[in-house]
């Protein structure tokens, strides 16, 4: 993994998450505040799990297939307490567990975040990056994570972007994973003026 490639991915990450955060903030009526600049890491897939908080805790995972001019996958993973906080902010409801409406709210939130991320990249590259209907899972982090990796047929390293927000005093953390297919990553890079990636 060379420096230029990593820098480029981080740049994509920043731009994409910037838009996703704006969208998220709008969805929450402007009550969301971004705490830190998103942190992008390129990690071997096993380390990525540790980076995202380990294997046993419960997380919410959103997974989409990307099609159009670019093929690949994208995922959002966040811990359960962040999910509860988001549901509360979105629906005004306080529930002991994630019910149908909660799942629906999370799915829509994931959909908007992923799509905003892809919209940003589309604007940058003039390529079409269309997301599928998102899949949603609420389960052990390890299980969600490996299902995402297997679904994307990832063998080596992944780019994980960590974002932390606070909204009405609650800390919300999420991880976005962007997994374009190898050849198409080159397509994106070329559109941004970077040859030979």
């Amino acid at each position, binding site marked *: 993994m060379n420096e230029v490639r990593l820098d480029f991915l981080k740049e994509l990450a920043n731009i994409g998450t910037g838009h996703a955060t704006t969208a998220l903030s709008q969805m929450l009526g402007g009550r969301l505040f971004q705490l830190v600049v998103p942190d992008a890491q390129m990690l071997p*897939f*096993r380390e990525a*799990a540790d980076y995202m908080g380990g*294997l*046993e805790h*419960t997380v919410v*995972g959103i*997974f*989409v*297939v990307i099609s159009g001019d670019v093929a690949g996958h994208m995922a959002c993973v966040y811990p359960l307490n962040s999910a509860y906080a988001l549901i509360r902010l979105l629906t005004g409801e306080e529930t002991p567990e994630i019910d149908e409406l909660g799942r629906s709210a999370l799915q829509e939130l994931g959909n908007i975040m992923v799509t905003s991320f892809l919209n940003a990249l589309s604007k940058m590259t003039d390529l079409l990056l269309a997301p*599928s*209907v998102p*899949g*949603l*899972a609420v*389960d*052990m*982090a*390890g*299980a*969600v*994570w*490996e*299902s995402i*990796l*297997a*679904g994307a*047929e990832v*063998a*080596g390293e992944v780019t994980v972007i960590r974002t932390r927000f606070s909204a009405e005093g609650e800390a919300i953390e999420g991880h976005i994973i962007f997994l374009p297919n190898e050849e198409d990553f080159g397509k994106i890079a070329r559109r941004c003026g970077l040859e030979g990636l």
Partner: protein
Amino acid sequence: MSEIFVNMGEISSAKDHGILTTVGLGSCVGVTLYDDRAKVGVMGHIFLPRSRPNDQGAPPGKYADTGIPAMIAEAIRLGASKIRLQAKLAGGANLFPNLNMKSLSIGQQNVEAVKELLSKHGIPIVGQDVAGNHGRKMRFFVENGLVSVTAIGREPVEI
């Protein structure tokens, strides 16, 4: 009692005592091999069904086709006898069922690949808890060969 965690793509083993555990089996398949006389246990955490040409440096346990033979070799290394080996499986779920990515989900493909390889090596499957849409944790007690499978919101199941 020492507990060894077997992560994605890893293979671990123990003799006489110890617990081999794998956390978070989604589409992956957790496989255990046990020789109850030699009290040798091996656990693998299989990620994908077939090894890739562009992933030469991968640990053998990552793919079913290289993982099962590697697990058998490890069992024999610790003193197990191949004809006494019995297998148990857990995992191979589809956590995102509404995404029709392929006709057969990765989880299902993994289960089929593992079963095919075990059959090829003449190893019977004596317990399984596979498929569905939920993640699993698998704990293998080498002292007696017991395997316990847990999932969120479910009672532990012994296979």
